[in-house]
């Protein structure tokens, strides 16, 4: 960061202002440089090793002793986290494998297979409802495209266009048949008649050739459309009445609606809306209804909620911070295709178990994870001289797969490049474009077994580039999958990697521009202790640089850190974490939503912009006034008073000490106080909102 020095000076000043009582300290440099008093030490440790102190945390850490508390955080297995486990219990998908998720929550490929008649419509009523809505959506989208393009062209579509023919043929069929059937049967599941209708549409569309003679009777079509829109009106009314029903009855009613009505219902949930339909339902019911809107939405929604709940409630705070750190370091983007159903296991099985373990293990785990293989395209990287690229025949045998023509038949350097640049030796790590290409060759064949079905890692020798490879002056002999493992191990133990990882850790835990003396010592530990991450952290936590006054409040909170720390500081209770996840997304940091492989920046300059500051202030005020749905807080209790203090200044001081344990500047204090006095009444909510939106609370 460019203004390191100015900022440091400002911070020292800021801190001195924050402690008006102990003016003695302000001018005495020698005193400020020594380890500060216990409560400041405890607060600093909490600010860095956790997502922010909760009421009473500082006292607890002091009671235990800061060093002992840090050691405990480095050993999360010794910390009981059962309260969090209870909160996460309802989220079933958190415990599911990729395969189970793929089976239960269909992805577009699977839906397409049903659409094209390659797979039968599922028999399970829940699954049928999910597929039914998705199929209807596909049709609707086509219909819409068709309609708009007709309007735009000002004339009817070409008669020979297969798409347009399928559309006009389809409209009377699927939409109407579905609802008529269920209206008469009342049984609720999509009956076989409707199913055939879907199938017919698909077959026709696929067939194409008879298209030219298909009926294009415009007037009957218009009639049909009028009829459909009238029926739609009734369906809409039906759907609108749903929220007034008791939860169980509501769920049953939705599941027994016609596919067409289910489709209308599902549209109410688009874009994360329609909370009133989900209120009071049990988690499994919620999952089903969300899945009707978007089959993978329950998976992504539970994962993002769990991330917030963990950050807020886990006792193993350092493990959560480090899980977040490593996820960001080995970033994958949840909205890239099949990654939507792979990120749950990626974080659970790849990142978290190694968060405080060995870097080597973590690196190999990410390299083999379907989420990473898919995100950085390595699963489709093919050696230019591999058996597959050369079209060599498969070995005969009872289990041999057919050899379909593959679209991907070349090297994909995406993973190779990011492995070097972002995961290990970093951009200045001394590699060339040739090294990137050679690295990519090493990893050809590292692929996913049936990605759409949630298959795991597979080494496919047919995709692997034969021959030796040379990466950064090192010769890797041909030995298939082992080549990748050899290279990963070399990278994981390289001094450049040790330095890069140490630097990133210090940037997260100490300051945007950490002292090189510290980074060097951390790198030494990294190399000496064979990439033991806990040891590297230990070196940092026990360094003078970590405790130096220049590091105090030196970090600007990211949106995630800001929101979570505000919730923790206010002691709020979370009934529903989804609204909070949306707040974080609005601040430009959607959870699991960093598209580029770099992950999110941990530096101040990224997160300081006008819109971002306004978002923070508005969030703080909304949170304190109970305007964030799903979050409840008791400020009176927090302020430690039975009733709001009539004395504005006293109320302010009391909230200051509980919400911002490090204190606020005189300026902040006076600004709030003058507002309070102008209004002549001390609304603790307003005060809390101002404190959480203050400059001091933006730092940790």
């Amino acid at each position, binding site marked *: 960061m*460019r*203004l390191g020095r*100015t*900022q440091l000076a*400002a*911070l020292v*000043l*800021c801190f001195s*202002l924050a402690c008006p009582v102990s003016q003695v300290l302000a001018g005495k440099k020698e005193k400020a440089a020594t380890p500060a008093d216990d409560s400041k030490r405890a607060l600093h440790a909490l600010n860095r090793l956790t997502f922010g102190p909760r009421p009473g945390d500082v006292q607890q850490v002091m009671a235990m002793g800061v060093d002992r508390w840090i050691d405990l955080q480095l050993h999360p297995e010794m910390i009981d986290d059962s309260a969090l486990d209870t909160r996460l219990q309802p989220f079933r998908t958190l415990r599911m494998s990729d395969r189970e998720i793929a089976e239960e929550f269909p992805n577009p490929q699977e839906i397409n297979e049903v659409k094209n008649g390659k797979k039968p419509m599922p028999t399970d009523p829940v699954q049928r409802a999910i597929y039914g809505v998705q199929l209807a959506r596909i049709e609707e989208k086509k219909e819409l*495209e*068709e309609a*708009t*393009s007709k309007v*735009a*062209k000002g004339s009817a579509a070409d008669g020979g*266009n297969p*798409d*347009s023919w399928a559309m006009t043929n389809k409209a009377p069929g699927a939409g109407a048949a579905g609802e008529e059937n269920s209206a008469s049967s009342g049984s609720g599941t999509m009956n076989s008649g409707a199913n055939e209708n879907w199938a017919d549409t698909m077959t026709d569309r696929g067939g194409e050739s008879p298209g030219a003679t298909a009926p294009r009777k415009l007037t009957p079509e218009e009639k049909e459309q009028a009829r459909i829109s009238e029926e739609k009106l009734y369906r809409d009314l039906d759907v609108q009445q749903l929220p007034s029903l008791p939860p169980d009855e509501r769920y049953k009613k939705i599941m027994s609606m016609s596919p067409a009505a289910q489709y209308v219902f599902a549209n109410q949930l688009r874009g994360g809306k329609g909370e009133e339909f989900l209120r009071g339902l049990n988690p499994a019911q919620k999952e089903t209804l969300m899945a009707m809107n978007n089959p993978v939405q329950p998976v992504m929604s539970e994962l993002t909620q769990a991330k917030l709940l963990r950050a807020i409630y886990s006792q193993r705070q350092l493990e959560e911070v480090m899980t977040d750190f490593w996820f960001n370091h080995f970033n994958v983007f949840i909205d890239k295709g099949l990654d939507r159903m792979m990120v749950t296991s990626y974080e659970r099985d790849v990142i978290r178990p190694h968060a405080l373990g060995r870097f080597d293990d973590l690196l190999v785990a990410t390299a083999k994870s379907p989420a990473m293989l898919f995100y950085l395209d390595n699963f489709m990287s093919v050696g230019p001289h591999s058996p597959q690229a050369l079209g060599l025949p498969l070995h005969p045998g009872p289990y041999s797969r057919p050899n379909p*023509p593959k*679209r991907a038949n070349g090297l994909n350097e*995406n993973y190779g*490049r990011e492995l070097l*640049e972002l995961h290990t030796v970093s*951009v200045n790590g001394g590699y060339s474009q040739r090294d990137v290409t050679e690295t990519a060759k090493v990893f050809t064949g590292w692929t996913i077994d049936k990605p759409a079905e949630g298959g795991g890692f597979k080494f496919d020798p047919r995709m692997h580039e034969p021959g030796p490879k040379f990466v950064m002056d090192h010769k890797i002999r041909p030995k298939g999958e082992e080549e990748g493992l050899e290279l990963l191990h070399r990278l994981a133990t390289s001094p450049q990697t040790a330095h890069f990882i140490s630097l990133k850790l210090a940037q997260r835990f100490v300051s945007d521009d950490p002292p090189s003396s510290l980074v060097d010592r951390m790198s030494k530990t990294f190399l000496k202790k064979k990439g033991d991450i806990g040891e590297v952290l230990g070196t940092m936590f026990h360094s003078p640089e970590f405790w130096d006054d220049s590091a105090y409040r030196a970090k*600007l909170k990211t949106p995630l850190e800001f929101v979570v720390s505000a919730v923790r500081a206010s002691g709020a209770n979370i009934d529903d974490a989804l609204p909070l996840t949306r707040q974080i*997304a*609005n*601040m*430009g940091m959607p959870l699991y939503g960093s598209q*580029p*492989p770099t992950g999110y920046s941990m530096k*101040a*300059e*990224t997160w*300081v*912009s*006008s*819109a*971002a*500051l*306004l978002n923070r*202030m*508005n969030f703080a*005020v909304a949170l304190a006034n109970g305007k964030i749905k799903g979050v409840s807080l008791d400020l009176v209790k927090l302020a430690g008073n039975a009733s709001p203090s009539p004395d504005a200044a006293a109320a302010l001081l009391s909230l200051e000490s509980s919400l911002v344990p490090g204190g606020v*500047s005189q*300026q*902040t204090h*006076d*600004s*709030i106080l*003058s*507002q309070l006095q*102008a*209004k002549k009444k001390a609304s603790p909510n*307003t005060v809390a909102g*101002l404190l959480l939106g*203050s*400059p001091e609370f*933006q*730092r940790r």
Partner: protein
Amino acid sequence: MSITRRIFICNGALAIVGTAAVPSFLARAAMGAAQAASGTKRLVVIFQRGAADGLNIVVPHAEPQYYAMRPSINIPRRSVIDLDGFFGLHPSLAPFQPLWAQRHLAIVHAAGSPDPTRSHFDAQDYMEAGTPGLKATEDGWLNRCLHDLPGRPQRSPFQAIAMGPSIPRILSGPEPAIAMNNINDFTVGGRNAKSSPVASAFEAMYDHSSDAVLHGTGEETFDAVKMLKSADPGKYKPAPGVEYPKGRFGDSLRQLAQLIKANLGVQVAFADIGGWDHHVNEGAVDGQIANVLREFSQSIAAFWKDLGDLGEDTVVVTMSEFGRTARENGNRGTDHGHANVMFVLGGPVRGGRVYGRWSELDQSQLYEGRDLALTTDFRQVLGEAVLRHVGNRNLSEVFPGYENKPAKFLHYLG
């Protein structure tokens, strides 16, 4: 990040405040405002994220190879809007036709980034940083192009605007820039609040904070909020007959037009539109590409019409990270390619012409045997706008490592 106190141009804002007590920030600005106000040159950059298929956007309809390579997704000659007997617009770009006829719209074909990457994020990163192949560049070229602009003592907080939730790569850097999702949400303590006590308290805290980073941004923010409130861009409805299509992109340009019309001192602006990555079922005259092109062209044409006379000082440039394969793939789509097409629209633009050298679609001419070869570096196109329109002569700073000789410009600006 610079932390100096910033003041800004706002003659429009002053006029609107009228008889109300003039806030000090406006009074401060009033002195330098008059001379700097009008004639602000604006550059609007539009990014088509996802690699648009330039060959189906500005179609080389006189090339038999084009039809041979795209048997199922070509735009038939009878459907293209012919431009010059060789190139033609996709029919969904009909809203561009009058702009072309009025010579406000120019086209640069076979343009783009010379970097061979076919990775979306790398290629976007390079084009936004303005340094193909170099990832270490910290800031974006659109930010750098405002740096040390001559004859510009005062800067508006609205000098650089990105329509979106955060500052994109192209605008990141030391020059202050504002990201805006929705101009109505750019406030503290609720919409329409005249003087919310909450807002005043926050302002007092940040204005005098000793926290250098937050103080600077906070101050800018509150200036911008007040300026926006005074200027009240919401009252600038689209001009009569102007209709923006529904959707994020149309919304972005509609709001951008409001900010420009409210005379807030916008000099550079950025908006993006996604939905171009058509690996499967791209469509041709109809279908996916037709739909996104319709939204694209209707929005831009509406923006142009909406700006009215302000268009005289405005240049709009479009870009996309790379083009797509010359041949269609096995899924009636196209894969990641190389060179692409850029549109340039504006008052000073010498439009009605396709600029750049056309390299044929003959196999021998294709880049790596599969893609349209690049004949114009995107920095050459942008460099001309930065130097001739924005007035930044220091092109080696805006596009470091690239020799950008004015003599080699395409001269699409009159």
